């Protein structure tokens, strides 16, 4: 069974699997998982926050890989895939930031903290927003724009470790009130629930990416058909 056949199965496999996993995840996160001693029930936000963050990384790495493939093969289907994945990545980044702030308010007392991870995530959000703005503001079928955006996405993705390092140093080299981000080793049950949530959200992200890619591919196809229709009509007249 080759890769194409597996990809053909996406509509049959992904939606039900992702759906069931998500419902299971909600039940596990809200009911089964034990209440955290220090943070209380708010800690349960971790089960959507962490998976969202991982899902966004997953989506952005798909964008980066597809961008490389586009540059090598110059096939627009890879450009479509990169765009579709970038949108999904942005949505999960946004969800990560929102759930993070909602967790931060009761625990830290503020919604926003210039913590290394949060700041990195924000910058990631900015980079890929810029990528999408650039891509959407230019012609869908333009070789140049697609190349520019692919290069931008690759650089942006490779920038992540550096951003993280710089933000972390920036925050830690400065004397400032230490905010304890208590993250002791999670108890076994919590760990299991977390792992399951990660799996569920990644499944959803994969499903969304396939849907997003489908949309972009259809847009490309529509563009081509419009062009053909234009030729036909002009030939008739």
């Amino acid at each position: 069974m080759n890769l194409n056949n597996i990809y053909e199965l996406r509509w049959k496999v992904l939606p039900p699997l992702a759906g069931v996993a998500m419902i299971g995840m909600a039940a596990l996160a809200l009911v089964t998982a034990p209440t955290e001693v220090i943070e209380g029930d708010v800690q349960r936000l971790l089960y959507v926050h962490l998976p969202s963050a991982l899902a966004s990384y997953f989506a952005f790495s798909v964008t980066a890989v597809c961008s490389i493939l586009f540059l090598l093969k110059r096939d627009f289907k890879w450009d479509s895939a990169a765009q579709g994945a970038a949108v999904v990545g942005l949505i999960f980044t946004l969800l990560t930031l929102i759930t993070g702030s909602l967790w931060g308010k009761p625990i830290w007392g503020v919604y926003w903290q210039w913590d290394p991870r949060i700041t990195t995530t924000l910058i990631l959000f900015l980079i890929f927003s810029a990528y999408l703005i650039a891509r959407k503001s230019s012609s869908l079928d333009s070789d140049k724009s697609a190349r520019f955006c692919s290069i931008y996405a690759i650089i942006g993705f490779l920038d992540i470790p550096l951003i993280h390092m710089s933000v972390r140093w920036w925050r830690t080299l400065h004397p400032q009130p230490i905010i304890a981000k208590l993250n002791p080793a999670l108890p076994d049950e919590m760990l299991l629930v977390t792992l399951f949530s990660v799996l569920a959200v990644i499944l959803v992200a994969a499903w969304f990416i396939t849907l997003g890619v489908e949309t972009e591919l259809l847009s490309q196809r529509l563009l081509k058909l419009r062009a053909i229709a234009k030729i036909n009509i002009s030939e008739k007249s």
Partner: protein
Amino acid sequence: MQDLAIETNCLTRRYDGLPALNKVSIQIASGSRIALLGNNGSGKTTLLTILSTLLQSSGGSARILGYDVAKKTTALRNIIGVIRHQPMLYENFSPIEDLELFAKIYQVPDSDERIKKLLTSVEIWHLRDEMIGTFSRGQKQRLMIAKSLLHKPKVLLLDEPEIGLDQDGLRVLDQLILMNAEEGSTPVTVLAATHREERVDTWATGFVRLERGQIIETTLSKDNL
């Protein structure tokens, strides 16, 4: 049998889904001079741009003297001379400065001699130290003729080389490029897009006519070479 200088096979290029060049297959023998005819938007420039390695084709293949155009090798780039629609010149350089840089890039031996000879042939030697930005279109075009011949290319890809040229300039163009009459040069293959169909008879050994990205008429007679 004669070598093929330019050979394309189902060459296709699409913009915004529209084919600008649609499965074009031509074979041009070495040493022939082919006029590329057709209306605006017929795909002439696209074909020449792909052949000069500036544009990726969407499908099909093209070879110049056996070198695959898509591979963009140094060897290929050393043997093509190109004149595009737009002059390719440093506006704030003098002709000498511009040509000296490109002589270096193409590793032209005895470059000073060569530059002087070419600038004299195109009759702008007296303008050698003026800024190119102050030139008229015709003067720039003459300089482009010199520049395209600088490294003694074997294949010339010209996009409307007549632009801006007066009667005198056309004579220079015919002598140097279209008639291959440059002193001591081996026959060069020429593929030139042109709108001046009345002039084609004077220099071309054959022609290709494009319409909407497809070949509709060809005469690649080799006998009158």
